[in-house]
């Protein structure tokens, strides 16, 4: 069983790294997004391999299911699909390399230094599961209640902000009329024409012409 897990780990690791490298080097930006998605998927598989089922599934749900679809939407709605063959590498690529490397170092160095490595692995029996849904839930509701609530409020604020922005935009936008409304509008105008005195007809006429464009 251990051999199988080692082989699977190596396969996933190579796949994740290859996909990540393709993400930053490939020319087509949609391809880059798709490589990013496969990299996310590989990370989810790694979590599953570590029997962190909740983390693995949450990774797929949030990164593959939500974030990447948002990325694809943004690319497809904002970019010219034909002319996206330019290279993604900028002249200042080394700055972009240093910043993530430094951030990664900040995370990984204390982890490596302080973690109690269990080598050789503990014997089979009752393995300490630190990642079951129940334990994560308990941790959120007891130990880390404050960060959890702060994150929740942040998300709520973002949601309300999005709604406010959408409503402001909607007020400025002219509503597209449905066919039934157009028919009713025309009927209303005809009634107005019928009730108005004779000279007003010439005033109504140009607006009648514009209504056809809507």
């Amino acid at each position, binding site marked *: 069983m251990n*051999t199988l897990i080692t082989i699977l780990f190596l396969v996933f690791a190579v796949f994740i790294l290859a996909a990540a490298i393709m993400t930053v080097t490939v020319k087509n930006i949609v391809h880059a997004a798709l490589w990013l998605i496969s990299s996310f998927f590989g990370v989810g598989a790694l979590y599953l391999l570590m029997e962190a089922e909740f983390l693995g599934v949450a990774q*797929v*749900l949030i990164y*593959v*299911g939500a974030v990447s*679809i948002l990325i694809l939407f943004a690319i497809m709605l904002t970019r010219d699909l034909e002319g996206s063959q330019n290279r993604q590498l900028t002249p200042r690529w080394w700055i972009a390399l240093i910043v993530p490397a430094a951030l990664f170092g900040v995370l990984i160095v204390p982890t490596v230094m302080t973690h109690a490595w269990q080598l050789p692995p503990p014997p089979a029996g009752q393995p300490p599961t630190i990642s079951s849904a129940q334990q994560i839930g308990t941790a959120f509701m007891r130990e880390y209640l404050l960060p959890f609530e702060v994150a929740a409020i942040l998300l709520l604020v973002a949601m309300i902000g999005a709604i406010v922005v959408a409503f402001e935009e909607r007020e400025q936008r002219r*509503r597209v*009329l449905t066919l039934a409304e157009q028919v009713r*509008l025309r009927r*209303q105008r005809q009634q107005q024409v019928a009730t108005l005195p004779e000279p007003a007809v010439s005033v109504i006429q140009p607006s009648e012409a514009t209504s056809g464009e809507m």
Partner: protein
Amino acid sequence: MTDILRSWIGSALPDWLIVLIAYLIVTTIVLFYAVGNFILMVWAERRVVARMQDRLGPNRVGPAGLLQPIADAVKMFTKEDIVPRNADRWVHLLAPVVSLAPVAMMLAVIPWGRGWEPIDLNVALLYIVAVSAVSGVGLMMAGWGSNNKFALLGAMRAVAQLVSYEIPAVTALLTVVVLAGGMSLLNLPHLQAGVPIMGATILCNDPAGCSPLLYTTVTLFPGSPNEPVQALDLGLGWWVFTPVGLLGFVVFFIAALAEGERTPFDIPEADSEIVAGYMTEYSGMKFATFYIAQYILNFALAALAATAFLGGWQGPGVAALANMDGPWVHVAAALSAFYLLAKIWILFFVMIWLRGAFPRLRVDQLMDFAWKLLLPLALVNIVSASLMVSITQWTDTQWSGLVNLDGFASWQRQLIAVVVTAIINIAATYWILSINQRPKEEEWDEELVVAT
């Protein structure tokens, strides 16, 4: 499965290979089961819709046209595979695969019968939601890779619909998580034992006088350390019979229709508007792959709805047969698998029925329906589910809090919970429906005046 293989060829092969072979066999069985159902579903849909529209439907190939899907498959295989010249070849090729694979993965965690479950995943419900979200990526790839305006429009519509209807679906499933005290799917049928409305709360007072045909040993709530008890069990304590389960089932089923792109919600492939949506540029086997993905998605969603709300494999007689020894356990398993299949097909028949009965929605109606009707209902339902759990399960000794009902028998608590949640759910449904049905006439007239 692993154990059987181990006893057969355990000495000849290393252990990890045996595990791998066992998984392969189980996967093959599940996939064949799904594809066999897919073939029958295509035939049934064509026949039933034809019947509703006063036509005959396919009736030439084989008895009553039963072999028509096979003829269709042969035609699909022999069709020329056309890829548009300006399409993105690899993305175009991979898109059907990416949309079928997650759908097939959904089948892995569903308990197909008593003791017939491929994988015991303790986050199975979350897994299904996560995996079904992945197929959106496949649709996006199809829309973009085809280099066709219709395909892109269809993909945009499909993904927008998928994303927005996921929210009511997940919220409806959350009520199941609250009721079950966990996200595992394997527990759900066990928890829905008993009699309608009351569930497994009518206990046996005299252990000697209770027939094992009617009473089974159940652990009332796996979330709490309750002792196993003897309860009246007809296999009908489905959650759909309680107010919470009924509302959850209705919301989930409608959302599942939208996720499976069934007819009132088939905007992404509206053939009168955008040819065939994201499938426009596909032919031959690639088109067939999309087709299979869609039907198996419907099959899996129906199985999920049946397991979560309609008791899964639970039904009259299963528990009684399983209580007997020897080969009867296998009979019970077969009977339970039949019950689940029957429920899936009834749900699928309702899907066909809706297709025959309703016209297609508009996009704004689609969004209004999800956000203004389904989501509030599902949210109210979560409150009801929490109340139900607190009334039926909380005691003074453990998780004391909201209500103090110590000393009540379990069936009394269940009755109180059902009445309270029924009042809440009916009132909320009536209120939300009346808000949504209020005519918007005045508002429209104002805007019409502005528009002129």
